[in-house]
């Protein structure tokens, strides 16, 4: 795709260069279309050189723009792919936990973060949900927005 766009630009710029040479050759004409002073071969060479240089610069910029666009497109596709993969992966892991099974936890993956929302009965469950998400979404920032609704009455901490 990059090569095709670059070739396309180069083709148009080549045409532009030829037109610029033509303009250079027609320099300093009077109203009858006759040259006041015929362009020298040096002037024409300079014009051709400048046109070629301009074409090269624009082609280079076009190539870079095409490359950037391709990169952006690739990154966007990667993010969508990651989001599509990470969300079900985290949801499955949460569902596999005997503690969190049946909990009301929603998972939303955007760019480089995974956001957990919903509610659980106690802080231990919230912490476990966050740890489980972290384990299954390496490299992602985990945003824990789970509300602790309160379940069993507080008891002396056991383990």
């Amino acid at each position: 795709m990059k090569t095709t766009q670059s070739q396309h630009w180069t083709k148009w710029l080549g045409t532009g260069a030829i037109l610029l040479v033509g303009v250079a050759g027609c320099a300093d004409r009077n109203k009858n279309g006759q040259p006041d002073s015929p362009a020298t071969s040096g002037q024409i060479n300079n014009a051709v050189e400048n046109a070629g240089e301009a074409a090269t610069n624009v082609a280079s910029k076009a190539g870079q723009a095409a490359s950037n666009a391709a990169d952006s497109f690739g990154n966007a596709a990667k993010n969508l792919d990651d989001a599509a993969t990470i969300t079900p992966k985290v949801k499955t892991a949460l569902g596999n936990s005997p503690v969190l099974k049946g909990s009301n936890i929603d998972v939303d993956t955007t760019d480089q973060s995974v956001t957990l929302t919903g509610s659980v009965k106690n802080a231990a469950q919230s912490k476990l949900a966050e740890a489980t998400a972290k384990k299954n979404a390496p490299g992602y920032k985990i945003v824990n927005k789970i509300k602790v609704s309160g379940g069993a009455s507080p008891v002396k901490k056991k383990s």
Partner: protein
Amino acid sequence: MPYTFEDAPLEVSAEPQIKDGITWVPLRSLAQAMGANVDWDPDNRVAILYLGERIATFTINNATANVDGQEITLRAAPYLDNGDTWVPARFFQDALGFGLQVDRERNLVQFSNPA
């Protein structure tokens, strides 16, 4: 001390218990001595072990534990005693890969890093 890790003594609140031929260890106290953490979910009566990247859950009176999302069968069901969850010492070897030597005559439980 009856517990060691890589030959260094561990400060654990209670000595190992032997019941029905199984050596039991207090999960929270032992885990903390090994640098891990344990949470307690009172609603489900579940102890949650965080050991590095590993996450394990133990339900009281249920011999099925969960390690990193996978169910495993313990040698016997964990129980509560003196404010701690007791689990079979072999769990650390069978599920987490630690080295384990149990000397019942000297009531000594020796752990070593996973191979």
